[in-house]
């Protein structure tokens, strides 16, 4: 029994309940204070994560190691930025209820549990805790029909994905006799050893998790939910949960099922190619920027899966670096989208950005940086993420995958750069309202990170490599 290994999660969960009680008892509307406390709780938890030790606790259910630390810090950063971008929007749209930050916090606890899962059961409970909170958050603007629709759609399809995941877990347990990652990797030491049942179970688990990262055959919910959910929720949904689910896929496939590489590799390759293609092609015709970001995130998850498909520490390192760059450019872009507000009303059309450079050069510049970065143009961080991913694929001789990846990112560059064209070369539309400081802060933080990533890429790379090596033992 090792209580200390989950200390960050315990502290965060207790803080969440304390904030909940505070919000209920507070005489006035406690939204802003509750948000501040939540941010403080995230920062304290991040410090605890950094001071954590490598250990396997709770009868082998929970593992705290370099990989989980890396992922948790990224999740906490994404969640903190998610709370900050929600501050202003919630007050404008009359959804300033203290439950909002509490739900983000509890969802973060679930994600941290996912990052540390060392057993299929803790994996499942982490996924559920994360998802259930996000279902509620997606429907948080309950008087808005589209928000309610987004919540319901996400909930129903998410329940289906949970069913697939559970079915896969039960098959793996039934055919291998254990749910513990350590036991599984000790038992499944060669591809020939695994029975068909285990393979089918792995396929179902991958399907369930692919739904959470919105990879292609399981992406249908993404555009509608992204568009319908309140924008700060979309910003949160597009970053932290993707990181957690991707980390879980990495830990699962490269950990206990590492020797079944031949079985799952083709599956991941297929999903990656389909995601990259759909992400770059379907986004071209979009007029709503939130829908565009949905297709963009599908494409990005496809690139991240390329690194996983390589099946090497180098590939996992690429995935982790890709996730780091993805989180910061995504949250920065959403900060800019949230600042699109005209006469107090939020606008979401790409056409609304017309001539932004003439009315608000700062915002246009930051948004242009994010778009260049997402398109993968050097020296921005998005380029480095793609570089490490394709490098890993090429090292493994997966030329076809790498070439398709490069081609789709060229196609994708079209719609990213079209936004820049709209902002800089179209006739100016009416100016947006003044930006609140919180959104400027997040946009600048994300922009600085994206621009200056190459300056501090070495320590991130070293940390990612150390984390990746933990998975491969």
């Amino acid at each position, binding site marked *: 029994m090792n209580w200390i290994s989950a200390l960050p999660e315990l502290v965060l969960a207790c803080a969440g309940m304390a904030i909940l009680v505070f919000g209920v008892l507070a005489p006035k509307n406690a939204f802003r204070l509750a948000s501040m406390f939540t941010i403080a709780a995230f920062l304290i938890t991040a410090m605890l994560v950094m001071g954590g030790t490598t250990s396997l*606790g709770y009868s082998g*259910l929970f593992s705290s190691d370099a990989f989980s630390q890396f992922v948790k810090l990224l999740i906490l950063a994404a969640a903190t930025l998610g709370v900050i971008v929600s501050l202003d929007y919630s007050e404008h749209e009359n959804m300033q209820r203290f439950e909002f930050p509490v*739900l983000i916090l*509890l*969802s973060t*606890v*679930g994600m941290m549990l996912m990052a540390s899962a060392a057993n299929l059961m803790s994996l499942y*409970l982490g996924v*559920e*805790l994360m998802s259930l909170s996000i279902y509620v958050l997606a429907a948080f603007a309950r008087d808005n029909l589209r928000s309610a629709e987004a919540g319901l759609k996400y909930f129903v399809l998410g329940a289906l994905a949970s069913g697939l995941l559970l079915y896969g877990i039960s098959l793996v347990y039934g055919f291998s006799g254990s749910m513990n990652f350590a036991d599984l990797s000790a038992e499944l030491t060669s591809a020939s050893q695994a029975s068909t049942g285990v393979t089918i179970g792995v396929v179902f688990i991958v399907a369930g998790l692919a739904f959470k990262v919105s990879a292609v055959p399981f992406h249908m919910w993404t555009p509608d939910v992204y568009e319908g959910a309140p924008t700060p929720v979309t910003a949160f949904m597009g970053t932290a949960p993707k990181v957690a689910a991707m980390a879980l896929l990495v830990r699962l496939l490269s950990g206990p099922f590492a020797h079944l590489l031949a079985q799952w590799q083709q599956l991941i390759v297929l999903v990656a190619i389909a995601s990259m293609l759909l992400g770059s092609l379907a986004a071209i015709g979009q007029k709503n920027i939130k829908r565009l970001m949905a297709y963009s995130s599908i494409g990005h998850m496809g690139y991240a899966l390329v690194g996983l498909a390589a099946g090497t520490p180098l590939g996992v390192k690429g995935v982790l670096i890709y996730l780091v760059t993805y989180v910061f450019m995504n949250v920065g872009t959403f900060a800019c989208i949230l600042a699109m507000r005209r006469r107090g009303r939020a606008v979401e059309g790409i056409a609304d950005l017309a001539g932004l450079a003439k009315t608000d050069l700062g915002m246009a510049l930051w948004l242009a940086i994010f778009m260049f970065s997402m398109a993968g143009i050097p020296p921005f961080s998005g380029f480095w993420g793609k570089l490490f991913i394709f490098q890993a694929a090429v090292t493994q001789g997966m030329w076809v995958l790498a070439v398709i990846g490069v081609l789709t990112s060229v196609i994708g560059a079209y719609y990213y750069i079209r936004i820049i064209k709209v902002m800089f070369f179209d006739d100016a539309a009416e100016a947006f309202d003044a930006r609140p400081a919180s959104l400027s802060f997040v946009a600048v933080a994300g922009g600085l990170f994206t621009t200056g990533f190459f300056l501090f890429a070495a320590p991130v790379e070293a940390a990612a490599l150390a984390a990746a090596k933990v998975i491969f033992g």
Partner: protein
Amino acid sequence: MIATLAFYLFAGILLVSAAMVVSARNPVHAVLFLILSFFNAAALFLLAGAEFLAMILVIVYVGAVAVLFLFVVMMLDINFTQLREGFQRYLPVGATIGVVLLAELVIVFGGWRIAPGSDAHRFAPIDVAVENTRQIGNILYTDYILLFQASGLILLVAMIGAIVLTLRDRKTSLHQVVSKQVARMPADTLVMVDVIRGAGVPADHYLRPKVAPVAAPEAAHDSHGHGGHH
């Protein structure tokens, strides 16, 4: 001998009451038979040595679930005779499907063979010296404490979600603010009225409501100085 007798007694009542659950005409009777079958199932668990499961069955299923069913049946007022109207018409189809399923089950169980070495694994390796309540407690609260607490958090999220998405503060709803009621002074709402000397004081004449006159007896009551019940 007695254990066998008890087993057949409880099992027999269980089967009969389970059959009554689906055949009883009155839905309330059906739920009551369901409760009876729960009790008998609990007794069977006791005979098998699983006293914890027996108690849980009584507490959770009889105490909560069945009573909930009873309330639902009473409140929904479903017309069950109407539901049964198509029974005759659909009987042939239903019976055919039932027979097919039964045949499949027979085939499955007929071809069922137990793997040679599986006898040794048939029972979970439990320590007979430790009673099963303690064993379940060990698993739930020691081995799987993390999962137990995580499930608790999931239920908390479900509760928060239900409240956030449905609870509305209507403008028309009436709230009782106790502190306001207690702090209310007679002078806030009542005025002194001059009375003609020597003419006697009518019972409702010295303190009056400030604005709209309320019913006389109430004003008289307020005048005694504890006007706290508005």
